[in-house]
Structures are given as structure tokens and as C-alpha cells.
């Protein structure tokens, strides 16, 4: 559920909200702090900055709308190590245990916070500026006690919390212009596509990450479709400031940039149109296809930030990276059913996968595929039945390769995770990783593995409601590894998890939910080396939010 899916009693803020007026009031103050009289620059913007210039209509009323939410989450995590001992490479259990008594206690509790602001500044019908700002993002409740004032740094005496230095995180900032030829978006953009299996912008209320890219997109309408061409810069490597600070930084070498071009074709109805059509007994078909090409010629390992190595010919690695991603989705909705499908194919290669200056490796390739198909039917009001089948290709190397540590050179039999690459004999990375924000369960994939990868799962669900804002959902997930050798016990069956959720959403934006998950691990998660069978794990996950 995304915040925008929630019912709203209030209309969107008008273009003359107090917030907008406040912004207008602040702008001249900022301008007056300028050191000298503003002059028109080559873009003709000086007049806009001039406090004595007659404001235009557009200057006076830039509409400001604000979306976002305040979210508190809490968890009770019990036996997520599955009582099956450590993995061979790390010597650590699947999941951390309480530090005070790791041999006895097996329950962890925690809560966290996020305030998300998504302002939109409307400069007219055609122009707008957008941003995503997260405040106290992921802050663990109680994690920043101010110990300076009382009783010599005793936690027990803390009476207030310190503000973290990174209290504000700007995740997106982009502009939108509707031109006579099409729609232009540019800046640091959120990236989402289809069901969010691979590209997910993290806009759901319980999401943690979110994909972004620096670049621009231009989309034109063609025969009731949207044809988009996007250019992205995912990494530019080291940069320098020719003036030693205060100037405009310059990318040190264009050849090490990671760039991408994508071409997309999309046909989709707006949510309002979709509801009208479905209410009228009509079917609605949405679909899209994107082909993205990403490449990088050379790389400078370690040349990151001021502390990194200066990019030189000696530190250069002939990366020779190229990759193609094809992602297609389809959604067929009728009055009482919804069929959704997303399929992904990825092919990539590196001429040199070295992470060290002065080292060269043989080529490395990746061939990955996967997807999701799900059917939802509503036999009557207040009842929803669903079935989802998901698949992510696997790699036969041990471990899942969901979030391998950079300090681990290879995975060993019995590991839960680890690199899927092992030079020189294994030069393939074939496990497709779903976006971590594509949630299918509470425990196995989301917490233990980290995301869906090297997996086949079946996920039936039943949902009752909404009734006066309440919904009750029961989900079951059977999971197994695509490659049995990836599972810690080298057996494909991983577990069966059942998740029960009770959610409430008020018309004015209050949401709360309580989810309980119970994982019954199967043979694939046992510890063969120590002869320990994996035991059930539980999770209680609460969420309280104010959505605006």
C-alpha cells in the first residue's frame, strides 16, 4: 500500500495555501541577503531575483503542495537465527542475537521513525519542481540520548534526545516540464517500473530504500501510448574543483562514467479512469516495456571522494562493462479480478571485474531472469483472494548473493550469503535480485536473506475488508531455492511462512497496522555441518503513520 492509495477526505492544498504564502514571505528575505544588486544573467533570471522588480503572476503564486508521511515502526523479532548455529564463512548466525546473552535469549525489539516530505512547487500548468526529503530517516527510537547534561553519561539519566547530524536526507530533486512536444523530467529522479520487482522507487509506506537516478526523461504520446527515452548517470567517479573550493566541481574523467539509455513504451490509465471503467463493468489493460542499456568503459577503483586515489593511468581498470535489461509488465483489470505480470531479463558482462588498481581479471558475465505473476479476484464486496507466483533466477555458487559483504572473497557451502563470483573458475553472476522494497513476506526474504533472489515462491492470500477502514489479510508463502546448492543445507525447500495482518486507515490519513509472521523453516536452512535443524522464527511488526 502506498500513501497515495489511502483514502483522503481533504482535497489537495490549493495553490494559495498558508505554506505557499509563507514561502513567498521568506523569499524576499533571502534575496536581501545577497551581497550586491541582482543583475540579469544570461538566462534572464536576474529580474526574478530582484526584490524591487514587479513580480509577475507566476512569481506571486507558485503553488506548493506537500505530500508525505510520518511513520513509526516497531518490531519484535524472535529466534531469527533459527537456532541453527553459525555459517562457515562469517562464523555468525543468520541474524544477530541479544548481545547480553546470545546463548539464551533470542528476542530482539526495536522501533524506528521517518518523516517523509515530498513537496511539489507548481510554477504554472506546465512547470513544477519536486523533491523527496526524509527527516530522521530510519532513526532507531531512543538511539541518540543526550548524555552531556546529567550524571556523567549515564544512559539512565538521559532526559532528551540529540538531533543526529544527518537528520535530513534529500533523496530526490527533479523538475517537470510539459512542452508542446512531450513531457520532460530532469534531476535526481525516483525510478519505478511495473510492479516494482526490479525498479522500485520505495514509495510504499513500509519501504526502506528506493531507486533513483540522475538524468532526464523525455516522453511523447504516440497512438495512445507514452514513448519515453531516458538518459541516466549512475556514477561519474572522482571529480575535482578547479578553484579549490567554492566553484563548480568537474567530473575528472568522462570515460569512467556509468551511463544508461532506456527506451520505454507504456500504456496505462490513470487510477481515476481505471476505477470508472471497472465500476462500469469494463476491463482495463495496462502494459509497458522498457529496454535499458548501461555501460562503462574504464574505472578507477578506490577513486571515491577526497580520501580516494587520484584517477591516473596507473590506477585505471579497463572495465568494459555493458548490460541490457528488458522489463515488461501487464495488468489486466476487470470489475472483479486483476491479473498482473512482470517479467525481467538481464544480460551483462565485464571485461575486467577487478576492484584493485594494478589487478586485472578475466571477463565476468551475468545472465539473469525472473518475474512475478499474480491474480486477485473479488468474488464479493469485502472479500479478496489472491495468488502470486514469483521466480528469480539462481546461481549455483553457495549462498544467495543477496547482499554479499565486500570483505568476503567467496561463499562456502553452508553459507546463507556470499559472492556468487569465485575467480578463476566461476565467472558468472546469474542470480536475479528483486528490489528489497518488493515485499513478499515478513521474515525469510525480507529479514534473513535481504531480498528475493535465487528463489521460487508461491503466495496465496485472503483479505477481508475494508470494513470501516479495517482490513484483515492472511498470507502464506512457500519458498524454495532455484539452485539447491545456494541453500545452506544444499536442499531446495527453504520454508513456509504465514503472515497475518490487521490494518486500519482512517479517511483523514491515520494508518496503523499490526503484522504477525511465523516461519517454519524447511530442510534447506538446516545446518548440516553442525547437525542442527532450523527452528521456527516469529516476527511482530507494527506500523503507525500519519499520511498527508
Amino acid at each position, binding site marked *: 500500500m502506498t500513501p497515495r492509495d489511502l483514502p483522503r477526505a481533504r482535497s489537495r492544498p490549493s495553490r494559495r495555501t498558508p505554506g505557499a504564502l509563507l514561502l513567498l514571505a521568506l523569499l524576499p528575505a533571502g534575496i536581501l541577503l545577497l551581497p550586491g544588486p541582482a543583475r540579469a544573467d544570461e538566462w534572464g533570471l536576474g529580474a526574478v531575483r530582484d526584490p524591487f522588480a514587479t513580480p509577475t503572476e507566476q512569481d506571486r503564486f507558485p503553488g506548493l503542495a506537500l505530500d508525505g508521511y510520518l511513520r513509526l515502526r516497531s518490531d519484535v523479532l524472535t529466534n531469527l537465527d533459527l537456532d541453527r548455529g553459525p555459517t562457515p564463512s562469517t*562464523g555468525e548466525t543468520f541474524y544477530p542475537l541479544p548481545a547480553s546473552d546470545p546463548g539464551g535469549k533470542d528476542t530482539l525489539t526495536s522501533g524506528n521513525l521517518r518523516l517523509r516530505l515530498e513537496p511539489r512547487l507548481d510554477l504554472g500548468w506546465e512547470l513544477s519542481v519536486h523533491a523527496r526529503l526524509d527527516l530522521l530517516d530510519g532513526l532507531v527510537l531512543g538511539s541518540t540520548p543526550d548524555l552531556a547534561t546529567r550524571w556523567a553519561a549515564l544512559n539512565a539519566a538521559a532526559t532528551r534526545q540529540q538531533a543526529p547530524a544527518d537528520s535530513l536526507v534529500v533523496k530526490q530533486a527533479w523538475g517537470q516540464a510539459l512542452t508542446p512536444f512531450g513531457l520532460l523530467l530532469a534531476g535526481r529522479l525516483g525510478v519505478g517500473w511495473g510492479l516494482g520487482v526490479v525498479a522500485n522507487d520505495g514509495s510504499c509506506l513500509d519501504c526502506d530504500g528506493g531507486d533513483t537516478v540522475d538524468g532526464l526523461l523525455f516522453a511523447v504520446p504516440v497512438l495512445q501510448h507514452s514513448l519515453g527515452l531516458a538518459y541516466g548517470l549512475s556514477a561519474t567517479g572522482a571529480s575535482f574543483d578547479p578553484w579549490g573550493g567554492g566553484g563548480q566541481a568537474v567530473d575528472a574523467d568522462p570515460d569512467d562514467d556509468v551511463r544508461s539509455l532506456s527506451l520505454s513504451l507504456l500504456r496505462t490509465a490513470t487510477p481515476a479512469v481505471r476505477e470508472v471503467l471497472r465500476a462500469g463493468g469494463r476491463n482495463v489493460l495496462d502494459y509497458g516495456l522498457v529496454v535499458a542499456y548501461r555501460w562503462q568503459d574504464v574505472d578507477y577503483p578506490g577513486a571515491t571522494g577526497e580520501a580516494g586515489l587520484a584517477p591516473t593511468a*596507473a590506477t585505471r581498470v579497463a572495465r568494459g562493462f555493458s548490460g541490457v535489461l528488458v522489463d515488461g509488465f501487464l495488468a489486466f483489470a476487470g470489475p472483479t479480478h486483476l491479473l498482473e505480470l512482470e517479467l525481467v531479463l538481464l544480460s551483462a558482462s565485464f571485461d575486467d571485474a577487478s*576492484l*584493485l588498481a*594494478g*589487478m586485472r581479471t578475466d571477463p565476468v558475465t551475468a545472465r539473469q531472469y525472473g518475474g512475478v505473476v499474480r491474480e486477485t479476484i473479488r468474488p464479493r464486496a469485502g472479500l479478496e483472494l489472491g495468488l502470486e507466483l514469483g521466480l528469480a533466477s539462481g546461481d549455483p555458487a553457495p549462498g544467495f548473493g543477496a547482499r554479499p559483504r*565486500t570483505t568476503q572473497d567467496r561463499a562456502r557451502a553452508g553459507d546463507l550469503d556470499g559472492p556468487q563470483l569465485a*575467480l*578463476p573458475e566461476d565467472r558468472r553472476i546469474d542470480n536475479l535480485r528483486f528490489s528489497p522494497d518488493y515485499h513478499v513476506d515478513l521474515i525469510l526474504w525480507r529479514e534473513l536473506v535481504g531480498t528475493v533472489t535465487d528463489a521460487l515462491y508461491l503466495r496465496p492470500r485472503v483479505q477481508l475488508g475494508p470494513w470501516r477502514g479495517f482490513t484483515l489479510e492472511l498470507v502464506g508463502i512457500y519458498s524454495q531455492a532455484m539452485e539447491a546448492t545456494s541453500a545452506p543445507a544444499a536442499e531446495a525447500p527453504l520454508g513456509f511462512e504465514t503472515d497475518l495482518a490487521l490494518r486500519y486507515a482512517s479517511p483523514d490519513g491515520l494508518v496503523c497496522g499490526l503484522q504477525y509472521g511465523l516461519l517454519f523453516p524447511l530442510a534447506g536452512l538446516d545446518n548440516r555441518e553442525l547437525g542442527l535443524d532450523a527452528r521456527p522464527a516469529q516476527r511482530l511488526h507494527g506500523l503507525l503513520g500519519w499520511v498527508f
Partner: protein
Amino acid sequence: MPPKTFPGSPAVGAWLTGALATLLLLGGCVDGTPAAAWPGEGVPPLPTCRGDNDGVIAAGELDFTPGRRAPYALVASPGPPVAGLPEAGGLRLWDFRDATFDSVHEVPLLDPAGLWCADRLAGGTVALPFGPDEAPPDEREAVPSLLVLAATGMAVDILGVASVQPELLLLAYDRAVPFLRFPLVRGARWQAEVAPAPGSRLGSLDLAELALVDAYRVELAGQGRLTLPGMSLDNVLQLDLQLTRRLGDEGATWESRQTYLVHECLGTVALRSEADEVWWVIWYPQ
């Protein structure tokens, strides 16, 4: 039990320099995990160093912090010549792409602080476990000794050798032996002669009374490229270490030579002793 052949065996030089090889091997600027019980299991770490591949190894490009560990494998096939094959620009090539590999050993860098004779090897910052080459492998591990070194900002010095088990073996040199002098540059060389300090002993034998003299000679003799199956490394330095052991002015003399191929980020990536004529190579999969 003490090492069977110390100090009279000609193999003693190989024994000692074998431990030095391990030091350089582990001197790679790698991010390790705390050492388990030697020679226990662990995570062979990936390098997190910032070598700039300029052909000169600065002090900060090798790290000798206790707790690090690394694997290395025995090369079963003959391997390349000690000095490598000539390449353009006066560089060398050590080609292991077609080599066959045997057993793999993983060795940690240890903290000598708790050693029974730490006061006699004062200033030691890192220690390497090793055993006499001629002993069976299981026996080497059963009675390991430690080579104790002092790694400072600009140098690594050998302080001496001590058995892990108290009172068996202590060879403390009368002064520190310069093993590495940074920066390491092709053509650099240095040498030193040292003798056992008073109190050095092997069991009940007083080593200082033997008029034992160890002469170390180190030379960075070459530079070039090392290739392994699946990867290659540029700007590897060839470091030759010669140890000449003399027993009295007119006594017998033994010599030992070791060759190390040192990468500025990974430390020693290959080594070869003249005595057993085999290569050891780091960074090969187990």
C-alpha cells in the same frame, strides 16, 4: 619439543625465511577478521587497500596489524624461473596461468603481547606462527614457534624467534634486523649482521655462547607482472632475501635464499625458497 634441527641444520635458514615469507604475505593491506585458533577457519579477506599501482610500495600500502590472515597455495608444477621471463621495458613476467596447485594454508598475524618472553623481544608488534620446514605438517602445528617483528611507520624489523610453549626456544637478536625499508623501490638493497643476545637459548643450550652470526641481505631485484589463472597483477616487486649463518669465525656457514613477489596492495603474492625449489602463491581459490 623444540624444533629438531635448530640451529645446526642447513635448513634453518629456509625455516626462518619461510616465516618471513608469511609475514610479507600477510602484510597485504587487507581487511581481515580476528584470527581464530591457529590455523583455524576464517574468511579469506578481500583487499580494501588503496594501492596506487605506481610501482613503489609506500609504508601505508602494506599493513601488519595483528588479526589479519590470508591463504596461500603450494604450486605443484615447476612454475616460472625465479627471476621471471623478460618483458619490454626491463620488466619481468611470472606466469602461473598453467600451474597446478596443491594444498592451501591459511596463516594469521598474531599479537605477541602475551608471549611468555615478550619482555625479551620488546617492541614486537606482530608475530607469525611457523614450524621447521623439515618437520611433518602435523608436528609443525603442534609445536609452533613465533617470529616476532616490529612494524613501525617506515620499516619492519626482525626481533627474534620464540617458541609458543614457554622455555623451549628463544632467539633474540642483539639488534633489530632491517627486513623492509620503505619505500620499496626496484634496485634498493640493504644488509645487516646480527647475533643472539644474551639469554637466547634452545632448551638448556645457550645460543649466545655459540658465536652464531646471521647476515641478512635484502635486494629488490626486479619488477614486473604476475599472472594467475583468471587474473594478473601489475608492478609486482621481486624481493630477494639471503640469510648467511656463520658459526664462529672459522665455523661452518650455511646460506639460504628466498624470493618474494610483493604487490603493493596484496603483500607477497608468491614466494620461492632456494632450498625446496617450490613456489607458494597467494590468492588462489581453495
